[in-house]
């Protein structure tokens, strides 16, 4: 491990967080290992309550781990807290701007807390405002900014002190699709034009496509970690969704006559197959159950998520996060 330090922006070994909740302690994070290469954009996905926020908070030195170690930008998050803090930028889920101050005052406050000289602060503030296209609004009170503008300003602020790693916790939550796209344009720009490492959690699977690598977390553990392409090919299947006259019977027949496991998901019979186009005709001829509609989808990261967590990301946003059985689950 020691010979690889320096290349890795984030290196996590056996990281654990236990909360004393009432009588029974809850393990929010259960000994995860993680390695993020410098310069990568790394997506961190998982249902609510999976332990994503706790993990990011430990990496950002906000919480102390119960066990295990984490090094960020080469420094230990517990013993070298301030060194880590100087080298990371943070964009939180909830907004943390001073609405009474102007955009520039918010950035200047940040620059000075991070010990930038006046000249450096002036230069960096100009640069980051330019980057998020807010240069012409620098003297405006943040109170007058839209949600998207505030988010952009927070990203700009996270970059003022030229951090090595930028952490973003659900940066696009609650934003409209256009603003989400704009935020990701900025992150894409960073990925292509700078050497900064970006660690981002998100609920939106389409956003994970923009990442170099992604990890999916569930029940405090990392269930899978790879590039988006590799993960999709690992699921390796098309997904067929059927509306039938008798779902129970259809599931049984698919199993008996086609030798494929099927299940109910979002009110449809779902099955995972290698080549959807070949299977569809057989469904009509061999099932003997009235089929009202058929949908075939190529694998997406949603399916990856579903495969590894047993839930779609949409399900997991519900308060109780009900688990739905899925045909393709192995």
């Amino acid at each position, binding site marked *: 491990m020691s010979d690889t330090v320096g290349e890795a922006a984030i290196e996590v070994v056996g990281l654990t967080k236990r*909360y*004393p*909740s009432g009588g029974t302690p*809850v393990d*929010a994070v259960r000994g995860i290992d993680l390695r993020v290469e410098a310069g990568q954009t790394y997506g961190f996905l998982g249902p609510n309550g999976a332990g994503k*926020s*706790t993990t990011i*908070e430990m990496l*950002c*030195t*906000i*919480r*102390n781990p119960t066990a295990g170690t984490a090094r960020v930008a080469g420094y*230990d998050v*517990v*013993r*070298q*807290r*301030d*060194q880590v*803090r*100087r080298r990371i930028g*943070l964009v*939180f889920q*909830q*907004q*943390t*701007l*001073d*609405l*009474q*101050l102007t955009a520039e*005052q918010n950035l200047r*406050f*940040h620059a*000075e*807390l*991070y*010990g930038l000289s006046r000249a450096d602060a002036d230069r960096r503030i100009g640069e980051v405002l330019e980057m998020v296209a807010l240069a012409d609004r620098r003297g405006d*009170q943040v109170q007058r900014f839209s949600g998207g503008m505030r988010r952009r300003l927070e990203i700009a*602020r996270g970059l003022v002190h030229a951090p090595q790693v930028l952490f973003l916790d659900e940066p696009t939550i609650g934003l409209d699709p256009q603003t989400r796209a704009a935020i990701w344009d900025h992150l894409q720009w960073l990925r292509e034009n700078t050497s900064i490492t970006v660690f981002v959690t998100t609920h939106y699977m389409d956003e994970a496509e923009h990442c170099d690598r992604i990890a999916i977390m569930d029940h405090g553990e990392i269930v899978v970690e790879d590039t988006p392409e590799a993960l999709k090919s690992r699921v390796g299947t098309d997904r067929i969704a059927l509306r039938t006259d008798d779902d129970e019977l259809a599931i049984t027949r698919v199993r008996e006559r086609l030798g494929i496991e099927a299940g109910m998901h979002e009110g449809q019979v779902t099955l995972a197959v290698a080549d959807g186009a070949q299977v569809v005709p057989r469904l009509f001829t061999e099932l003997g159950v009235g089929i009202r509609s058929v949908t075939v989808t190529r694998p997406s990261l949603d399916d990856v998520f579903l495969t590894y967590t047993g839930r779609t990301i949409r399900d997991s946003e519900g308060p109780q996060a009900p688990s739905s059985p899925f045909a393709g689950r192995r």
Partner: protein
Amino acid sequence: MADSVDARDVTTRSDAAPGAASAGLDPEVRSDLRHELRATWVVMRRELLRFRQDKARMVTMLLQPLLFVFVMGTGLGSIVDTGGGTSFQTFLFPGVLATSVLFTAAFAGISLVWDREFGFLREMMVAPISRGSIIWGKCLGGAVVATGQSLVLLALAGTVGIPYSPLLLLELIGCLFLGALLLTGIGVLLSTRIKTIQAAMPVSQLLIMPMMFLSGALFPLSGLPDWLAVLTRLNPLTYVVQPMRYLVLEHLSLTEAEEARLVPVLTWFGWHVPVGVQLLTVAVITLGLVTLAARVFRTTE
């Protein structure tokens, strides 16, 4: 759950001590103290910037002291016998001046609750600065804002017959700042415990009003019944109000009768407490409060 932080999660400066040996080798850490002082200054300056943006607050905070001096002072003046030609307003003025920092200062301290609620506290908490710098910056900023605001009232001293002696003005400003820091310290200490905006306002009112009335700002301390005398002496604000009144009256030529009636004589178990000791008492209490607030903040936030 994920949002509540238990005490053991907190990485404090002292917790980081094991790393201090290796940190000492790091050139970045050498200027630690300078960085912390700068951080305190930055947090403090934010308070000033915020106050400048909030002009409505500036006006409303001044209304009450003006009413006390010019409306109540004038109204009651006819029935109060000062023992000579000195007006009741002159007596009242230093007391009201002292209490004019009360609301602004306490509010500035308690605004930490707002910082927490609106998320900005987090921005400060994750910066590479100590919690102590945040608390001191917050307290000093609030105290400067409150003192600055009461200067408007101080400028009116001439209208109630108080001379604009530079020394007196400096002394009064010093006392105002001390009183303001005391109140900001109390406010910040409260807001380390109070987590909701709804609770913050009533609690601060509950504290401010008794402190104002029990400081002897509006009446002389001599000849009070025992129960009231004890309460006034337990109130730290008394030791700001009485020195200010003493300093003002010292600059006027009073008759013997006026001196007996107006000039405050503060005693502890019969000992006549000198003005210097009174101010020192406030300074010590203030220092203790802010230090305590910083400590509580370190372990609970």
